[in-house]
C-alpha cells in the first residue's frame, strides 16, 4: 500500500468508531493523506463540536512530525525543557500556523517501507494513556488496514 485512499480511510474510520463506541466515548476521528490534507472526518453522534478540528489537527501533526502526537506531548513536558526559555520543545508551539497538537491521539500511517503515507487522529476520549484513550482508538483504526493486506 503506497497511498491512503478514501476507501481505506472509511475502513479505518469504521474500525476506530467501533472501538470508540465500545469504550463508551463518542469521538471524532480524522484520516489525512501524506500531505496532511483531510481525506475523511466523522464526528460520532454525541461527540462535542470541538473534537472535529482537534482530530484533524492531531492527524496533521502526526504526518508533519512523522511521529505519534504522544511524542509531541512529551516534547513540551516541563521535565524535557532545557534551562533556557524557548529551548527544547517550546519552539514547536507556534509552528504550522498553530495547527500542531500536543495531545496524544494522532498516529502516522506508514507503508511497508516505513514511509509516512498519512495520519489518523481521534479526539473525544478523556485523558488517558492506558486501555482507553484517543491513542487506542486510532490504533484500532490503523489495525483495520491489515484486515485486507495481510
Amino acid at each position, binding site marked *: 500500500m503506497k497511498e491512503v*485512499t*478514501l476507501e481505506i*480511510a*472509511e475502513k479505518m474510520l469504521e474500525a476506530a468508531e467501533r472501538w470508540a463506541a465500545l469504550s463508551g466515548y463518542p469521538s471524532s476521528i480524522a484520516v489525512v493523506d501524506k*500531505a496532511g*490534507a*483531510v*481525506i*475523511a*472526518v*466523522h*464526528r*460520532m*453522534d454525541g461527540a462535542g*463540536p470541538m473534537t*472535529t*478540528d482537534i482530530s484533524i489537527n492531531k492527524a496533521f501533526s502526526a504526518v508533519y512530525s512523522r511521529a505519534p502526537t504522544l511524542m509531541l506531548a512529551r516534547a513540551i513536558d516541563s521535565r524535557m525543557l532545557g534551562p533556557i526559555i524557548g529551548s527544547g520543545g517550546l519552539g514547536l508551539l507556534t509552528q504550522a500556523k498553530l495547527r500542531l497538537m500536543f495531545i496524544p491521539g494522532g498516529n502516522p500511517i506508514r507503508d511497508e517501507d516505513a514511509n509516512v503515507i498519512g495520519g489518523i487522529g481521534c479526539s473525544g476520549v478523556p485523558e488517558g494513556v492506558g486501555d482507553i484513550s484517543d491513542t487506542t482508538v486510532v490504533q484500532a483504526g490503523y489495525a483495520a488496514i491489515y484486515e485486507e493486506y495481510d
Partner: protein
Amino acid sequence: MVMNLDMAKKMIKAAIERAEEMNRLCSVAIVDDRGFLVAIHRMDRAPIPTVDIARDKAWTAATFRMPSSDIIKFGDASSPGFGFNTQNWNDRLTTISGGLPIKYGDDVIGGIGVSGGMPDEDVAVCEAALATVLA
C-alpha cells in the same frame, strides 16, 4: 429530527456517486444545524483546498439557512444585512454556490457543501444527496 452520522454518511455516499457519474473529483461536507462539522469525505485525487471550501459552503448554508449562493444578496445596498458578504468577521462565510441547507419540514437540520466542479455541478451533487435522505 437532528443530524446524525448515519444520515451524513448516506448523503455523502449519494453525493460521491453523483460526482463520479459527472466525472468530477470533489469533497463533500455535512454540518449540523449549528454549523458544526459532522463528516467530510474527499474523493481520491480531489484537490486539497476543496475540503475546506466544501466545509465553508456547508457552514454558510446551515447557519444562514439559505443556499450559499444566496449570500450574494447582501451585496444589495437596499437589503437588510447589506455588506455581510464582504465583512471579514468570520473565516467560513462564502458566497460561492454549492452549499445547500438540509431541511426537514420547516426545520433546518444541517447543511451540505460540495466543492470540486463548476458551480452548477456542485449544486447538482448537493441535490442528489438531499434527494436520497429526504425521499
